């Protein structure tokens, strides 16, 4: 436990988390500080490209790992299965109606790529390098949860999906960029990395700082405007669900035999909730669900929780499992 508190403190004292906290504080104080939309989009493109590319290079470097297929499969099962866990928990903790509960549940099966990136940073800072293919697992976990959410809404759910929506989900910008950059990294390997390392590796953490500052501003604004909505039951769900999700992730990682870094990342993917791909799909397919609920939960509660307390917690568990 002492180890966890040290980790948690070290985590909280890093420029990354402090930048996020600065953002939240500024938004709560109603400062007009803001990052232009184009800049935020540019940073997220940079982060996705960099992390995808590095993952690909790492796979190229270590050769094909039989765990890759297993982890991909586990990721898809987790993404499709966790919404059912979340739905059950929501029924216990909150009074959300079926539609809203299902919509929220879908978010928790899917993933937050920024939490994943922050997890990679924490892993590396503690000397654990994850399997490069975890990037591909992240991409694979984006979409299945959406299907489960629609199934939970009811039979009519399937009618809500048309071909266009399918294409939009499977080819959404972040999946294409992540997988595309992964493939480029895989094809060009260490030589390719050497060419653009000064761009995608060296300044990475600094860019992530500014990006987390923006996430803090957005999360803080969400909290401020939806504070009436965050009743105790929802709040408890936003904290409990990631912890429960991470346990499923940890179990899967232990079964597959992932490294400490890989275990941490599979836990993080399971624990994190989507705030880009799933909300966009829900707006189209389930317009009657209230975005104020699912965005506030995933962005205003679960994301900050994972970033500040979740990450060191999950790392502690990942180390325990691996006995490191």
């Amino acid at each position, binding site marked *: 436990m002492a180890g966890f508190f040290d980790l948690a403190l070290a985590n909280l004292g890093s420029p990354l988390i402090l930048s996020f906290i600065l953002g939240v504080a500024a938004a709560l104080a109603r400062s007009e500080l803001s990052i232009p939309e184009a800049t935020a989009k540019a940073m997220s493109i940079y982060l996705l490209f960099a992390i995808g590319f590095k993952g690909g290079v790492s796979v190229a470097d270590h050769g094909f790992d039989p765990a890759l297929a297993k982890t991909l499969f586990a990721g898809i099962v987790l993404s499709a299965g966790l919404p059912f866990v979340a739905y059950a928990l929501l029924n216990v903790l909150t009074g959300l109606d079926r539609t809203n509960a299902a919509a929220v549940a879908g978010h928790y099966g899917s993933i937050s790529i920024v939490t994943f990136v922050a997890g990679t940073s924490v892993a590396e800072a503690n000397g654990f390098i994850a399997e490069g293919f975890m990037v591909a697992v992240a991409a694979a976990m984006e979409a299945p949860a959406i299907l489960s959410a629609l199934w939970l809404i009811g039979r009519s759910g399937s009618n809500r999906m048309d071909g266009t929506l399918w294409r939009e989900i499977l080819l959404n910008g972040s999946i294409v960029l992540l997988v595309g950059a992964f493939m480029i990294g895989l094809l060009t390997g260490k030589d390719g990395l050497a060419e653009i390392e000064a761009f995608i590796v060296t300044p990475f953490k600094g860019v992530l700082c500014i990006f987390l500052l923006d*996430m803090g501003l957005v999360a803080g604004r969400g909290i401020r405007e939806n504070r009436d909505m965050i009743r105790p039951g929802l709040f408890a769900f936003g904290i409990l669900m990631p912890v429960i999700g991470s346990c499923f992730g940890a179990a899967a990682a232990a079964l597959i035999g992932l490294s400490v870094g890989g275990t941490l990342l599979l836990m993080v993917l399971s624990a994190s909730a989507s705030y880009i791909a799933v909300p966009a799909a829900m707006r189209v397919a389930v317009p009657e669900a209230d975005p104020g609920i699912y965005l506030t939960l995933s962005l205003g509660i679960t994301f900050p929780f994972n970033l500040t307390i979740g990450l060191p917690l999950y790392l502690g568990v990942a180390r325990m499992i691996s006995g490191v």
Partner: protein
Amino acid sequence: MLEMHDAKRVAFIIETPMQNRLTGALEEAGVTGYTILPVLGGSGASGRWSREGQVGRAGGMVQVICIIRPERLEPLLEHTFKLVERHIGVVSVADCQVLRAERF
């Protein structure tokens, strides 16, 4: 004086993820002329939002404007009503005048 012709200006304020579906519905209704304007923020029955409070495209909105001949208004509204009805947003129609009516 240049000759002006009566027309209708229909303005949709609609969520970004619905944009392609709306323009698709317009094309089905035989409307090939429209313009898409960015929206910074707004407020309505479903609360307040601003573009700066967005990560990704989930929450943003756009404005789609079509200028059409008066007789095309009804089919246009009928083709788009299903989309507009289920989703948050606003549709307004105003009279206007255009030069070169043959283009509409």
